[in-house]
């Protein structure tokens, strides 16, 4: 098992390297000259050329890529913003916790609410509770997150005046943003858990357990649920990814100074090193969560575990 974990961690290195190269290359392809952006429209072509030389923009692509990789991996330095001239790494580290709260809260809520909803719907298949929660789930997956956020603001800030519409501060500032990003995750999870549960409930070993006289509660919680939840781990990881994406928009709407606002503003200002750094940071965070999900799955699913440990463990059994 330890060997497998090590192997997976090592295998992540080329993927992250690939992400950095991909994002760097994408940003190289963007139109417009950074030197021009920094110096403004009044700069002469000599000034621009001088700055380009200074910034190393006249070097061949490979040299620039190598320099960037060296900076990022060995120094943890994403460069400085073209616009504000502030170190991107410092800025990102300051903003990242806020975005992380979003994404983690989204994942926790989708697990905490989505799983019971889905289980309940599957156990009481074709009941009112099933139809009700699945209709809600369908609506949730069909609604753009940012629009749901606007509706929440209208309802809870404009109409009822219970919660602030934007800004940061105490706990109540977090409720609407988190609710708006978590809702899609909750509904996706509920749908997934329901279909997973249904598949399990109709399988032979559940019939077997029932015919043995195991109580209904035990059948659900001891026999069905653990098996139905294994694929849910991957869904939880994916929901972390989509929460990360959702926060980008939610931060803009609720004016929360996280990584999302930083990236979106940078895109609008053509501040490419910031976009580059932000995208890489979020991609790495996402990859780490997915890796954790994979490892967790390998740890608890005996079928996958057997594949990894090969024939050794099988003999013991």
């Amino acid at each position: 098992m330890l060997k497998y974990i090590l192997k997976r961690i090592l295998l992540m290195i080329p993927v992250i390297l690939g992400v950095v190269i991909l994002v760097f290359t994408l940003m190289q392809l963007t139109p417009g000259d950074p030197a021009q952006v920094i110096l403004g429209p009044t700069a002469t072509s000599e000034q621009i050329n001088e700055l380009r030389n200074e910034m190393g923009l006249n070097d061949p692509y490979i040299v620039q890529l190598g320099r960037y990789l060296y900076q990022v991996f060995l120094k943890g330095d994403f460069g400085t913003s073209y616009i504000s001239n502030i170190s991107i790494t410092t800025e990102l580290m300051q903003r990242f916790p806020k975005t992380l709260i979003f994404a983690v809260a989204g994942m926790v809520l989708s697990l905490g609410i989505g799983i019971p909803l889905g289980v309940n719907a599957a156990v009481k298949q074709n009941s009112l509770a099933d139809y009700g929660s699945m209709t809600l789930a369908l609506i949730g997956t069909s609604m753009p997150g940012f629009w749901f956020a606007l509706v929440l603001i209208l309802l809870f800030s404009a109409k009822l005046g219970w919660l602030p519409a934007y800004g940061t501060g105490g706990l109540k500032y977090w409720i609407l943003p988190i609710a708006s990003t978590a809702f899609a995750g909750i509904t996706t999870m509920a749908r997934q858990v329901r279909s997973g549960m249904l598949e399990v409930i109709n399988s032979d070993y559940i019939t077997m357990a029932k015919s043995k006289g195991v109580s209904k509660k035990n059948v659900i919680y001891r026999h069905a649920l653990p098996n139905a939840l294994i694929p849910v781990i991957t869904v939880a990881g994916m929901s972390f990814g989509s929460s990360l994406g959702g926060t980008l928009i939610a931060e803009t709407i609720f004016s929360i100074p996280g990584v999302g606002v930083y990236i979106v503003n940078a895109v609008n200002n053509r501040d490419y090193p910031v976009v580059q750094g932000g995208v890489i940071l979020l991609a790495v965070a996402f990859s780490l969560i997915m890796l954790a999900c994979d490892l967790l799955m390998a740890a608890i699913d005996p079928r996958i575990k057997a594949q990894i440990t090969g024939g050794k463990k099988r003999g013991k059994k």
Partner: protein
Amino acid sequence: MSRAAVMEKQSNEAKKQNQFLEVMKRLSYNKGAMVGLILFLLVVLVAIFAPVLAPYDYAKINIKDRCLAPCAQYIFGTDHMGRDILSRVMYGARYSLLIGVGSVIFSAVFGVIFGSIAGFYGGKWDNLIMRLCDVIQSIPGMILNIALACVLGPGVYNTILALGTEGIAGTARLMRSSILNVRKMEYMDAARMSNCSNPFIILKHVLPNTFAPILVQATMGVGARIMMAASMSYIGIGVQPPTPEWGAMLSDSRDFLMKYPYMCLIPGVAIMIVVLALNLLGDGLRDAMDPKLKK
């Protein structure tokens, strides 16, 4: 098993027809899917006949009638420049459908090509394409879209391109795994023995048999792309106002959220209806095509 394969080859044409009809029949029994299909067709009709149906010119600015709440004259009200929101929503259907369908077709075509190469030829091509997919998929979708939009710039076609590129990896992976299932089938050996070329085998034998998951993914994908496009337009990196795309309309209404909420509710409901219709249809298609549910 081999006999079954031979029989399958013999009655290939008839069976294919049957299979398609059977799927359609099962789909037609699914109420949700039918509701979705009808809703979606309605939206398509509105998009096509927008010039006929729209009561006003969607771009005509009429300062005198600005910010009017829904009333008899303007069923959905007017926006901050006095443009009729109903007409704009109707034209908006064109953009949203174009973006959703266009980007899905884009990712399907390239995804199928790359996935086929990876699954069918295997070896170093498989390795190269799949590792690239790993890299692309380790960036959350929305974030990759924003990065791509940053490279391509705003606009309808660039948004299609960004969303389409983002989806290639997912389709390629799906295609590859379907192909790996199909590759071991006996009819593939039969085709190879009768000296068919590889591209011919892929087109004639592999694609029809791997079509189902791609179709389901595409149906669901259109809805997801419409939502993503709206989000991108909302934060100003997708379609730009005054284009009456729904996300751009929402972005336009941003400053009037508190005062004139109908401006932001109506385009959002339009998005929801289309995506809901596609999700219902996609769910139905998946159930109808899933052989596990055959009883």
